[in-house]
């Protein structure tokens, strides 16, 4: 195994000698109500082996029937990726034995994909890269095997395996790029940006949850290196199931360094699948995957060809949402965000959340500030998606409304969010319950100001002498006494009124 002794070549060095070529295969799990070839429900997280029937269990005699909604989703994805839509295509059987495959063949598409020849433009550092799409085809997921007793959770070393066939037959769309070349040092970023753009696009279509953490979007990263300037592609490896945007970038980066290490030492790359390790961003050898691997594809005789009528395809084209790039430009303009602010918002996966918060009444900058600040921090700390932090866009808008009304300030707002995380009620109720409202009653404030002046005679004198900037120290003292629940602007007014 060459990889064990490979020294990694630093990323910057790789590019002095080699050009990377990438190929990305993304599996998107469709959110259809039923499976690809039977009527079983697809809900995530059900008791194992409760969403099964003779067809998805591969029982003798059972037959598949194509899910029309999945075909529609596939076509919409294809159209959004600027693909041609086949006038006639078939399913094929991909034959191989594996315990989590009910039929020991996967019903997929082979040389007749439903969508082909498309592209997706992605932006990295202000530069646009056109990623060409070779095909997007329909297939079914396998069962999910859990290997028990081994150290690694992989089948190797396990004493037994548990198989959940709830996942077997869930509709998948596999989107395969053509070789992505000419990206040079930007390869890792381009890969990440492509997957991010694809995720946004598919999400916008509403055909999948595209949750990489739950496996409803999975990416396999093919990578090879060729000597700089060479037209001949090198041997590739396929890193399987790279399941976050960041990991996609890291996997490309690692494999480039690893390949370069082997090639520079005069070695050759073994064509194989690789496992990605989230912990240190490395990959390790999977199974060898030679071109001789033979799936004995042939057209699925139990299914009739899929021949989407042209009128229907055009009808579906009409249902496509605004392309993400166009939408982003429109929103940026409307919100008055800088390029940087917009990029950060999109990058944080907060575009929809910010949009909904603004729709609920918050000012654009305020909406962005909360989602990319306080709430992003919480998501990060707890390993959550922004959508899972326990606060809705409407609640964010309500909190901001309280700030705008000077009922609370930004600092108190954070305590309101804590109340929201804990489920203590609406923002207004939390302010009430926690007694967070800013004190704007001049009587109470005036007394506190008097105390501050009395306690800080030197500062008071400076202000009397015209050094208005010194008021800050007195404001701090007042705020301290009021435990932060004071309107700092009003406090300043009162101090100046008393001393000047």
């Amino acid at each position: 195994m060459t990889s064990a002794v490979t020294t990694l070549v630093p990323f910057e060095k790789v590019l002095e000698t080699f050009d990377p070529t990438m190929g990305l295969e993304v599996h998107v799990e469709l959110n259809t109500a039923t499976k690809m070839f039977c009527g079983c429900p697809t809900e995530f997280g059900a008791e194992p082996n409760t969403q099964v029937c003779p067809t998805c269990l591969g029982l003798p005699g059972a037959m598949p029937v194509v899910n029309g909604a999945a075909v529609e989703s596939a076509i919409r994805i294809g159209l959004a990726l600027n693909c041609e839509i086949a006038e006639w295509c078939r399913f094929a059987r991909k034959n191989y034995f594996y315990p989590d495959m009910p039929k020991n063949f996967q019903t997929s598409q082979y040389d007749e994909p439903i969508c082909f020849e498309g592209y997706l433009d992605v932006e990295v550092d202000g530069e646009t890269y056109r990623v060409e799409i070779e095909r997007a085809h329909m297939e079914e997921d396998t069962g999910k095997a859990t290997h028990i007793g081994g150290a690694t959770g992989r089948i190797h070393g396990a004493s037994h395996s548990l198989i959940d066939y709830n996942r077997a037959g869930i509709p998948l769309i596999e989107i395969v790029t053509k070789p992505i070349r000419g990206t040079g040092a930007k390869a890792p970023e381009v890969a990440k940006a492509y997957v991010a753009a694809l995720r946004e696009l598919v999400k916008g279509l509403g055909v999948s949850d595209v949750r990489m953490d739950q496996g409803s979007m999975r990416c396999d990263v093919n990578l090879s290196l060729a000597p700089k300037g060479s037209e001949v592609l090198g041997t590739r490896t396929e890193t399987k199931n790279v399941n976050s945007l960041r990991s996609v970038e890291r996997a490309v980066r690692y494999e480039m360094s690893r390949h370069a290490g082997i090639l520079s030492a005069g070695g050759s790359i073994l064509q194989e699948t690789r496992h990605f390790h989230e912990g240190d961003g490395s990959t390790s050898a999977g199974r060898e995957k030679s071109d001789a691997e033979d799936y004995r594809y042939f057209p699925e005789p139990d299914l009739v060809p899929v021949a989407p009528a042209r009128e229907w395809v055009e009808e579906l084209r009409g249902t496509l949402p605004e392309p993400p790039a166009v939408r982003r430009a429109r929103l940026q303009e409307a919100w008055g965000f800088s390029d940087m602010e917009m990029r950060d918002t999109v990058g944080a996966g907060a575009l929809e959340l910010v949009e909904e918060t603004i729709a609920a009444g918050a000012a654009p900058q305020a909406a962005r500030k909360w989602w990319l600040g306080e709430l992003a921090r919480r998501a990060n700390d707890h390993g959550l998606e922004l959508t899972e932090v326990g606060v809705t866009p409407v609640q964010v808008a309500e909190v901001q409304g309280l700030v705008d009304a000077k009922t609370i300030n930004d600092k108190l707002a954070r305590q309101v969010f804590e109340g929201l995380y804990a489920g203590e009620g609406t923002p207004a109720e939390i302010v009430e319950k926690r007694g967070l409202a800013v004190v704007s009653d001049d009587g109470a404030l005036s007394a506190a100001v008097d105390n501050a002046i009395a306690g800080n005679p030197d500062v008071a004198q400076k202000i009397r002498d015209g050094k208005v900037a010194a008021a800050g120290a007195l404001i701090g003292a007042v705020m301290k006494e009021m435990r932060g629940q004071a309107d700092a602007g009003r406090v300043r007014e009162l101090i100046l009124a008393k001393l000047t």
Partner: protein
Amino acid sequence: MSTSPITRTAAELADDLAAGATTSVELTRAHLDRIASVDGDATEGVHAFLHVDAEGALASAAESDARRAAGAPLHRLDGVPIAIKDVLTTRGLPTTCASKILEGWRPPYDATVVGKIRAAGLPILGKTNMDEFAMGSSTEHSAYGPTRNPWALDRIPGGSGGGSAAAVAAYEAPLAIGTDTGGSIRQPGAVTGTVGVKPTYGSVSRYGLVAMANSLDQAGPVTRSVLDSALLHELIGGHDPLDSTSVQQPVTGLVEAALQGASGDLSGLRVGVIKELAGDGWQPGVMARFQESVDLLTKLGAEVVEVSCPSFVHAMAAYYLVMPAEVSSNLAKFDAMRFGLRVVPDGQPSAEDVMKATRDAGFGDEVKRRIIVGTYALSSGYYDAYYGQAQKVRTLISRDFAAAYDRVDVLVSPTSPTTAFKLGEKLDDPLAMYLQDLATIPANLAGVPGISVPAGLADEDGLPVGFQVLAPALADDRLYRVGAALEAAHAAAWGGPLLAQAPALQEVAR
């Protein structure tokens, strides 16, 4: 035997039930008694059944009688018992496909055909023997021992559906369901002197039919009369949302066509004798009976011409590529993981070891042979030369049929080149066995329907000969018109049905 209900046709039994002359329980019990008396087991008797469900059959017979007493039968055949080839799933009843690998498996669901039969109120007597996974032409490849031909117990009943044909021929059931991938309904029909119909591909649901070759398989009726086949065919036919290859058109007009044909007038009908499906290798007695039947058709007013279907000579070769290719993939699911036999080798076997050991122990030689051939035919680098070429041959065969049907309404040939041969005679010669299906395979490759009706007994051995009629896709009614006309004319000449000439069966020891 003429007083016993078991020799009556299903249509006659239905009339008896309707007239209150008998009850379903009485009929069912009579057939169960007949099974007990002649069916025996792997070593003696007809051995048409792999599983008899006396209790279930009598229970549904009683329900049928109750419905009829209440004036609400579900179907004309409500209460008439039936046997099902063991390749169709039956909820709660063993379904083995005559393979060790499915021993003990009780499916959790009914095949659509079985569901329709239950919904029409026909008591299911049991599951009939067959070649393992329907692979064979003699029923000798059953893992549970062969079925014997009721005409001569030392001879094969045809295959793969020898059990269904023999059950009907031995009066163990008035009706049976068979499946036909390359002739498995028609050839057993021919060699047992019964009627067998392969419907148009897609006109009867395949859901729950354990696939041998999905693009060729078709379930159909096995009976003693053409009218019975029409009744059963209409019952099991029609679109099934669970089988996307099933056609949308309703299956009707078959009974009407059978009744019309029985009147004996075939004037205006154009009949084509397929030149390629006859010749030196064919048993003379088979050719003589075939020619007799052709002459009868002329007498009944049909216009008979010879037609050539030149691609048919390649049908056998194409069939033995397409079928094993599909077999190799279909049978991959038998892996011991979810159902059926599980053989666990000693030591600490991996899942893969268990799969290997189970498949080695669970599949018979003919099944393994076809899996190996099919795996090879689909292999990268060979696909185009084998599977791809075979598909082209299918297209050519379809064109031959289309061209022929431009000139004639139906095509005819002997169903099988020989009468029933002796058990064991061709077991060591797969190719000789495969030739049994020479005349039946083209219809499967093209998806067109075919019927085999008795044509008499061969002079040299006194065994039944079958006469095959083929029609264009979805023109199954023509099979019934021609078949019924021929049946009526023959009966008049023979003084009754051919099966009346069969020797009486010995009772087996109990």
